């Protein structure tokens, strides 16, 4: 009997594809974000108001993952941005290899921001790095203020958490202070925001966060060509 000591990271093949995507994004100075949440937390609605808000400021492209249908990509395409739907056919998360195949569908020299809307699932997508610069988790208020500690993987791997649908707070048991504490318990460096895409409450903070990161990324290398 022999013992072989190893140091293999599981899912490292996905990470390699993720790093290859990251290299493409950096070469083209594209800021890429990955939105993850449970189904129905408001990812598509947030994307719709974000692309509208920045319509004259950034060239934004969107990749949308769903188990089936092109509903979400049609909704987003109506806002005049390039969008591609990834139908996973049952897979519960997007993987880096698929993203690598789909990014070639965009005009990468023009693109400044790529938003990836992951499949609605707050578990599996957390283990799959897609090459994004920032990961954002959405938790809607009806899901409960204890959700961050129930899904620690999502909090741990995210850079920001957005508590969405704040207009529903009067009707559901959700305390924003508790929710924020529960998120910061897992990841003390998280940016925490609360908003309602329906009423517009809190959207400014999100737009500021988005703008400052996108600008920082797009201007990091002044020698960039074709922009």
């Amino acid at each position, binding site marked *: 009997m022999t*013992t*072989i000591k190893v140091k293999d990271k*599981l*899912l490292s093949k996905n990470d390699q594809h993720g790093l290859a995507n990251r290299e493409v994004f950096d070469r083209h100075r594209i800021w890429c974000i990955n939105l993850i949440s449970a189904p129905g937390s408001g990812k598509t609605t947030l994307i719709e108001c974000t692309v509208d808000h920045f319509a004259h400021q950034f060239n934004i492209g969107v990749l949308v993952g769903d188990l089936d249908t092109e509903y979400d990509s049609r909704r987003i395409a109506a806002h005049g941005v390039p969008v591609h739907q990834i139908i996973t056919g049952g897979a519960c998360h997007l993987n880096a290899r698929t993203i690598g195949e789909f990014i070639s569908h965009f005009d990468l020299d023009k693109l400044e921001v790529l938003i990836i809307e992951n499949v609605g699932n707050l*578990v599996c997508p957390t283990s799959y790095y897609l090459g994004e610069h920032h990961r954002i988790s959405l938790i809607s208020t009806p899901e409960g203020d204890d959700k961050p500690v129930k899904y*620690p993987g999502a909090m741990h791997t995210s850079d920001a958490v957005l508590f969405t649908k704040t207009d529903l707070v009067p009707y559901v048991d959700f305390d924003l202070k508790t929710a924020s504490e529960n998120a910061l*318990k897992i990841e003390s*460096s998280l940016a925490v925001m609360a908003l309602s895409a329906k009423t517009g409450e809190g959207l400014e903070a999100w737009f500021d966060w988005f703008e400052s990161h996108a600008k920082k990324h797009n201007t990091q290398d002044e020698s960039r060509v074709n922009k």
Partner: protein
Amino acid sequence: MHELSIAENMLEIIENYRAERGFKHCSSLTVRIGLLSAVDEEALRFAFEILAEGGPHEGVVLEVEKTYPQARCSCGCSFEVTDLLYTCPRCGSVTAELSGGDDLNIVQLEVD
């Protein structure tokens, strides 16, 4: 559900080492799973068993080592987090800076 692709990856890694080291049989595989890794041990065991069935690695014993994050509170206290609803044992703070506890690795293979 992603435990299935993790289990698939575990079998691939065993196969890669078999090709590299030329052993005949792997008797056990040790993996390290952190509290923050979003991997369910039971689902992983189930997926591994199903995928290995009927193949060269059927019956490989899966050993799971669990790891936990280390918390550092602003009051200076450090402690291990085994329950995410923790409070600092010294000052009672409900938040702290966590590090580690997000492992998702293969640690060793027992082969002959």
